[in-house]
């Protein structure tokens, strides 16, 4: 058993070094169109992808706390923020009213069957990815504790300036 876990750990480390692209996956927009996530990312600047759900308190806190930073990052660096909801059909019809109520200005996409979540190997939401203008995943973070949004804003700014980022 122990050996197996060691093997996993080694695999994880090796993989961690790799620059990754997003796997092509179909998502739904709020007006019911099917789109590929690859066509939604920005080619001019960094893209932030935040995975969330209507029932996930830390997710909502993260997206709310980040909203102020997002406006500045978009103006200064042409950054784009995608909020991908993994809500299933119990809650997916509550997504649009909630986004309005929260006053978020993010592009919201629905991953009802959780295909993208699975393809990216995400365990739990919230989960945040930052992509550079070439569409490479350069930073990932799972979970949210207050203050993470400051860190995320710094990362996005660095990515936009072409600096390297570390966890």
């Amino acid at each position, binding site marked *: 058993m122990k050996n197996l876990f060691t093997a996993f750990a080694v695999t994880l480390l090796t993989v961690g070094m790799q620059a990754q692209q997003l796997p092509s996956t179909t998502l739904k927009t709020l007006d019911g169109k099917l789109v590929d996530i690859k066509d939604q990312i920005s080619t001019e600047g960094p893209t932030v992808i935040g995975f969330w759900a209507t029932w996930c308190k830390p997710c909502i806190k993260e997206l709310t706390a980040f909203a102020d930073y997002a406006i500045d990052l978009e103006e200064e660096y042409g950054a784009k923020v995608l909020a991908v909801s993994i809500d299933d059909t119990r809650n997916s019809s509550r997504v649009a009213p909630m986004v309005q109520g929260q006053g978020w200005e993010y592009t919201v996409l629905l991953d009802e069957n959780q295909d993208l979540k*699975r393809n990216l190997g995400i365990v739990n939401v919230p989960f945040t990815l930052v992509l550079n203008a070439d569409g490479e995943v350069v930073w990932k973070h799972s979970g949210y504790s207050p203050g993470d949004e400051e860190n995320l804003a710094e990362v996005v700014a660095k990515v936009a300036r072409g600096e390297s980022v570390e966890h």
Partner: protein
Amino acid sequence: MNRLALRLLALLLVPGAAIAQDSYGGQLHGNFQLDGQWYLRDEGIDPTGEFYPDERFLGQGYANFVYTDGDFSGGLRYENYQNVMLGFPEGYRGEGITYRYLQFKQDNLDVTVGSFYEQFGSGMVFRSYEERGLGYDNAMDGVRVKANLAKGVYLKGVLGRQRFYFEKSPGLLRGVDAEINLSERWHALDSLGLRWTIGASYMSKYQRANDPFLVLPENVAAGGVRSQLMKGPWVLNTEFAYKANDPSADNGYIYKDGNGFIANLSYSKNGLGVIAGVKRIDNMSFRSDRNGSTIDMLVNYLSPTTEVHTYALPALYQYATQINGEEGIQLEANYRFKRKSKLGGKYGTLVSINYSAVQSIDKDYVATSNDTLRTLQGYYSDPLERGTIPYFHDLNFKISKKVNRSFKYNLTYLNLHYNRSVLEDGLGDEPMLSNPENIKTMDADVIVLETLYKVKSKHYLRNEFQLLSTQDDRGSMAMALVEYSIAPHWFFSVQDIYNYGNPDPDQQLHYPLASVVYTQGTSRFQLSYGRQQRGIFCVGGVCRVVPPSNGVSFSLTTSF
């Protein structure tokens, strides 16, 4: 093809090797989770030791690997339970590869062989999905074909059997779903500002039958139609499903057909979001084993129309859909008072209100002695007649406000009514109608105040105070929680629930719990020590008691 096979082999045998083959341009994603708990004997919460496991230490883990290379992808999951932790389904015994698939996607065609998750519409006819944290997984093992036949026309076909722990369901599933985005096909709709999508689905199961007393249907079919209509800020969703006679352990082997209806209307614009929904389901339990129970081998998903609460105290009394029949409504409104307005203050104020209520459906039982035609219909139900047994209601208000740059709060009030006879004991309507005085309920008022204070850059202090006030069940409880986080790595939390209102003085206990979390990028390690209360975990009308426990638990998750 050889190259594909080689790549596949490399992926399946040596995940590391596949990554090293950078020239192929493929990529590997995945995740890994390991949970364990060392249990301590605690006479306070478990006087007789009936929940104390013999093993003392229980642990379980899994790893997922998904490899994608252009049009091709494949993946697998390894799971182990040594042994399964308290509160998880006992069916998880041992270890093995429980999920593996290959998928090919090109232009308008998408073919998957092996394991897959899929759903038709909202899932009233078919949904296979996983909820790892709850131990729920009804993945299909078979073939799935998705095709985009023409502009705006999407077809899905599935064939296979469902996962049943480390085995497969005895029943075979075959289904097809069609969805047409009318606005993509007819631009006239677009010019009217309408977006309209319609869909239809069909699912049939086959299970051998050899009952000496009854003629059981070996093939049972269900079908549904749905529509989503949008105009400006308005969205109207409707779905209707029908299921043919399906005598099962759930419905007591009656031959009545089943049906379900869900509709909701929402409006979202300028900081206002409103949604109103109704639903009614009647005898819609649909499993790939007619003898299945609890969370096993459910073919469809009947989404509950109540709000999910994540605060610890209201989460003790969660609603679960009653698959044999229920009707309910839900109303929700969110509004954001603008910045610098009178009520909005400097940063704006968010208020929301949610009301949901669920009750039994009308049932006119056919007594066995009166069933002269011997058709075993069980009961007749008039959809226009209201049921009389309340199952659940929840009325709640939330205010969330940022006072200044370093202080925010959320205030929540909930009023809950919870039918314990239905939701904990799984009692049917018939005994409750004949003995209404025996129905056990729980009525509670809950107040939650959550505050967030910024100490300095990247240092935050979060508090929660919760009070659940009730005369019923375990009585009133109070909870306090303090969390200190240092972004982006550290997180400390201490909480205590005090069940001061328990009618049994010996059970007026404290449930303290302390945790430390360390996050490094996508890896997260959590260590907790403390007592956990008895809880209830419900899916599809059957509830399982999650026993109380005391001990040291850890959890490691990572994704790559």
